[in-house]
Every structure is written in C-alpha cells, then in structure tokens.
C-alpha cells in the first residue's frame, strides 16, 4: 500500500526538494500533493485523503501554526501525522508546534537523510 503525502510550503523550490527526498528515500509513494499555504492545504484535505503532511510554518494567507490549529479542531484531520519543516530552530517554536500536535520537526537547512529518518520514524517504516 503506497503513501499519500501532502507538502505545504510557499516555496516551489523547497517543495521540489522535499518531493525529491521522499522519492529517493525508497518510500512507496502513491501520491504527492502540494499546497502553497495552509488555506490551500485545508481545501485539498476536504477532497483528498493523505497519510502524512509535511508543513512549513512561515507562509502567507494561513501559516503553519494556524494550519495545525485548524486541523486539531477537526476529528478526522487531527489524526493525520504532521511533520514540520521550518527555518525556525528555536526551542520555543519547536515546543509550540509539538504542543499543537506535530509528530516530527525538521529544521531547514537539512540533509536529505535527516528528513528521511524523521519520515521513517513518524510513519513507523524502516528501509533497513
């Protein structure tokens, strides 16, 4: 059974890199959806099911913090694991996002192997 991933980031370049890491990591990827901010992500999630969400924090329209808070308020969406990928490496922000329900956190810049390891941990898969 393949994974369905939603990547939420206002940078098309970063979305491309994240997509590439997922493909190179050996995950059985069924579908990769993308959104430029939290509001677009919410619209997508009303129509499509996903198995994991990777989200930035600093985005226009609806940022990552607002996006996570809105998902938490929804019973079905709140169960989807979220990994935050952000330039904000402060302990304050990491705590805040984990308190909002994020299951993982990767700070930019990152080695592709670090993102792979975090995804494997959150999804409970191992390519070893």
């Amino acid at each position, binding site marked *: 059974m393949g994974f369905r991933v939603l990547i939420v980031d206002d940078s098309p370049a970063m979305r491309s890199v994240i997509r590439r890491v997922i493909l190179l990591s050996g995950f059985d990827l069924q579908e990769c959806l993308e959104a430029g901010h939290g509001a677009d992500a919410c619209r997508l999630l009303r129509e499509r099911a996903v198995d994991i969400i990777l989200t930035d924090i*600093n985005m226009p329209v609806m940022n990552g913090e607002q996006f996570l808070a809105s998902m938490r308020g929804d019973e079905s969406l709140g169960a989807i694991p979220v990994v935050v990928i952000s*330039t904000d490496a402060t302990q*304050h922000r990491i705590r805040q996002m984990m308190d909002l329900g994020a299951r993982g956190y990767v700070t930019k810049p*990152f080695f592709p192997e670090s993102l792979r390891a975090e995804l494997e941990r959150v999804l409970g898969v191992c390519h070893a």
Partner: protein
Amino acid sequence: MPEPRDAEILFSAAQQVLETMFFTSILGEREAPPEEPTLGARASFHGAPSGTFGLRLSSGAARAMAGNFLGAEEERELTEAQVGEVVCEMTNMICGAVLSQVETESAFEIRLPELQPPGEGAEAGATVRSLDLDNGALTMFLSFDKA
C-alpha cells in the same frame, strides 16, 4: 548601528545553509560586493527584534547553486524563474538561521522573500558582509528596526 556580533551571525548562518543544501563552500571574506551582474532577494521579518535581511549573489553563483539545490544535472536547463525561486528560498533559510540565533525565546515571522531589481543595495546602517564562494560571490545585508 551595525554590531560586530551581527557579522559573525551572518557568516555562521550562511555557512550552515550554503554547505548543507547548496553544497557550496565559503572561501573567505570580500572587501566589497562584486561588480558583475547579480541576483538579489530581500525579506522582512517580525518578532523581537524586527528588521530586514537581503542577499545578492553573482549571477553565475545563483545559477550554479540553484542547480545544486534542486539536484539538476544540467543547470543551464533551469529557467530564470526557477533560479529566482531558489534565491528566494536561500534568503528565507539564511534569514531563518540568523533569527534562530538572535531570537531564541520568542517566535519570529519571515515574510515571503521577494526578488530585488539589480543595483538595489543595503539600507543605511545595515550590517553588510561579502563572501567569496567556490562558485562566485555572496553579499548579505541585515538591519534591525529601531525599537
């Protein structure tokens, strides 16, 4: 008023970002920004403190690093738009790395970086740091809003 510590923070943030995701080494300091054509971007940030961060890359370096970032075997196949998007994301990441060192206990927000027209330089009073890279030159500007 530029602080010496700001210059150090700029260097370490740039090194962290450029080495990790752009596979580029910093060779040393430059006295002045390069005179060749450059590509630049700027982002404002809000928090404690607020301010502006910007950078300029020599055109060759911008294209080479865009290829590195995206994993493109042939950098000449990248569009100008793709190179611009990568320069904006580089601006976002270096700014974030700077602020993560400066603002440890409060949240910060970085607005969407925007490409800047050629010739647009630093604001008055900004800390400016120019670096020689193994594929060109980088100049960074950092200024904090007055409290």
